[in-house]
């Protein structure tokens, strides 16, 4: 920098990438690139001496790459360089000159900021897309996969669930067997139940042979396990006033069997865990987001599944000539006007909505009861009364 026509130059530190030796060099900013000359500023004062300079390297401006460095240091590497040769420039004037000439160095960081904005936008879009996949894609995907899951797998799943159910709900310790219909006073009821189930099953074309059991539980409820196992609580039979009301509930549970909702739930839960837990939510506090999203989405899936089973019940009841409205009637009696708490977390649609939906699609007309009076009264007696008052444990 002694004469006006001399190229801009200044001191720098150079590492050749092959060894850790620190070389104090002089960098000369030429027209097309940098020349890295041995020797510090002190020996470079006289431009005439340059012929004696040892040239370490020449780096074209187009090849320069900015490496991460502390403030006040311009650390340069070379694009595509497998070696880690580095040039560190602390002289602000020289650094500014080089930044001006080498466009790739992104002086001021505008390009980097643009890239970052793009990344943030893309990440946000990815998060939104994965969330939408969880809401809409997963249920659809589960429906596509279900036919591919062998029935044997669902059967095994059902056996495993059955074991848990027995562990949690079995009332054997109170005296009589958990399942009703085996004692001599109960066999007539068992036969009547068999007749009702056979009527429904013949019209249903289910993927599994049904296995319906009435069990000694007071809660008015019924449930379908994966693999065709249906439990009907004694308490539900007590609440049903006509055979068609019981048949309506049975048909609803058969809807779960027909739709393979056991497998569906497993698939949806696994998919949710993958999307919320593995792909999304991995940050401090994200656990709460994951739990909330899974809970709300699971409830929403469950509401859809229940609505589909209701529709199936209506359809099946019409096929066998029963009263398709009976399911609504028994639901109204059991659930009544109970307050549900948060709608967001309901795993069934609200009862009045269910009844309205049933009534909207069910045909009206006079039907004959699916069981005659004798069978119905036998079925009502399928569970002989317990010796002691049953404990009303929650189901």
């Amino acid at each position: 920098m002694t004469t006006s026509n001399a190229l801009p130059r200044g001191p720098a530190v150079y590492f050749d990438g092959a060894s850790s030796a620190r070389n104090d060099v002089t960098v000369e900013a030429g027209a097309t690139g940098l020349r890295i000359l041995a020797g510090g500023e002190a020996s470079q004062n006289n431009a005439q001496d340059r012929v004696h300079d040892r040239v370490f390297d020449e780096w074209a401006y187009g090849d320069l790459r900015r490496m991460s460095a502390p403030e006040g240091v311009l650390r340069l590497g070379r694009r595509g360089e497998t070696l880690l040769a580095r040039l560190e420039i602390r002289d602000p004037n020289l650094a500014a000159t080089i930044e001006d000439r080498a466009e790739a160095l992104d002086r001021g960081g505008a390009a980097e900021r643009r890239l970052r904005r793009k990344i943030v936008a893309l990440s946000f879009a990815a998060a939104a897309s994965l969330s939408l996949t969880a809401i809409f894609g997963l249920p659809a995907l589960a429906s596509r996969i279900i036919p591919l899951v062998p029935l044997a797998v669902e059967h095994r799943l059902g056996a495993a669930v059955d074991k848990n159910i027995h562990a949690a709900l079995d009332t054997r310790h109170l005296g009589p067997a958990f399942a009703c219909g085996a004692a001599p006073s109960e066999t007539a009821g068992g036969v009547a139940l068999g007749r009702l189930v056979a009527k429904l099953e013949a019209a249903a074309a289910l993927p599994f042979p049904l296995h319906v059991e009435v069990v000694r539980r007071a809660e008015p409820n019924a449930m379908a396990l994966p693999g065709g196992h249906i439990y009907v609580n004694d308490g539900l039979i007590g609440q049903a006033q006509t055979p068609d009301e019981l048949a309506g509930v049975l048909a609803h549970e058969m809807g779960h069997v027909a739709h393979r909702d056991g497998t569906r739930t497993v698939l949806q839960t696994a998919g949710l865990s993958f999307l919320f837990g593995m792909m999304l939510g991995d940050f401090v506090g994200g656990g709460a987001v994951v739990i909330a999203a899974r809970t709300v989405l699971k409830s929403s899936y469950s509401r859809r599944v229940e609505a589909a089973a209701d529709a199936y019940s209506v359809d099946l009841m019409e096929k066998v000539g029963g009263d398709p409205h009976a399911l609504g009637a028994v639901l109204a009696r059991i659930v009544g006007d109970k307050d549900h708490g948060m709608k967001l977390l309901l795993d069934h649609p609200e009862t009045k909505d269910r009844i309205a939906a049933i009534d909207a699609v069910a045909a009206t007309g006079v039907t004959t009861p699916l069981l005659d009076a004798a069978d119905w009264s036998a079925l009502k007696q399928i569970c002989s009364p317990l010796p002691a008052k049953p404990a009303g444990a929650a189901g």
Partner: protein
Amino acid sequence: MTTVDALSAPPPAGAVQFLGNEAAYWRLRIKGAGLLLLTLGIYRFWFATDVRRYLWSNTEIGGETLEYTGLATELLGGFLFAIAIVVPLYTAVASAVLALDTAAMAIAAIGFLLLVLLGQFALYRARRYRLTRTVFRGVRFDQHGSAWPYAFYALLWWLLAIVTLGLAYPWAQANLQRYKMRHTSYGDLQGSFAGAGSALFLRGLPVWLLVVGPIAVAFIALARMVDWNALNDLMAQGKGTPLALLVGNSGVAVFAVVAAATGASLVATLALYPLFAAIMMRWWISGLRFGAVTVRSRLATGQVYRIYLRFLLYIVPFIVVAAALGGVSMYLSGALVASNHDSMPAELFMSAITLAIYVVVMLGASTIYQVVVTFAMWRLAAQTAELSGAAALDGVRASGVPDSALGEGLVDALGVGGI
């Protein structure tokens, strides 16, 4: 060919400094936390890379700073690759548990052990990724050796540390550090670890006694207080649960002893944690070796206590303010929901508000911890470290190639540590 730079006096060859400042780090952390929230965590690869770049490039050893050359896209790729390994593994374990229900427990246990092993494997490989992305004076660090032996070795040491109630922890640390450093090099300069388990044990023993001691004393006291024969007789007669009998037997005294012991242990844990952190940091840094280069840490315990006290000074007001703001917005959104009882959007809104408050508080607390504790500890560790024999750093030949980010991805996917 190397001449001394006449313009700026070079710092002493063995000096370690930290050049960064807290304000810049606050900005980096707060911005990152916001973007994590916005992208539900997907931004973490870029965030972690920014943080490392900042910490590395501001750590100066003998006048030259470290450089982190890793890319966020590498971390993202490693994560996706890890997902492709972890998801089938989870699925296989879950299916095996489902299919073989007689051996379900055994399979679940084997699956768990496999995941723990894979976690250690991941930590070792992640360390390799970071080392091969750490460049100093144009030469990269390296870690060689297979990660599987390390994973087995680490698993055994951790089991031993757990069954000995932490007494074997110093030797576990010493052996694992030795293993890691033996497989670490800076260019062709071979690393090693000189910290001894016994030295750490002697340093840590008082801490261990004060934390575990009260509980041990309580056990002995309980054993003496309870009339076990009488208790045994009562239980044999089926007169109630063991807990009820214990209380009936020795009354309030038992609870007093249990409460006093747990309380004393808890207080000791909180009060001595900074001391423990100081002991560990000093021991670890002072044990690092690269060829003839040795490191010594002059870290003072009081400095670490100052860091943790400052953390209290930040976190307590933060929690108070957050709780107040959270209470007000919950009240307001609660009123909104109450006024339109049947509407799903109102419920959604209120849930979202509650969730957002929780997440912001958690992210805020984590950010405060990261800046006030983690960053400060890094800075302190650097400023109190001193190299001897630093001349050996001048003639190191480059070696090693960058490793894939699979380990980092596995660490992330398995949740065995932050990236």
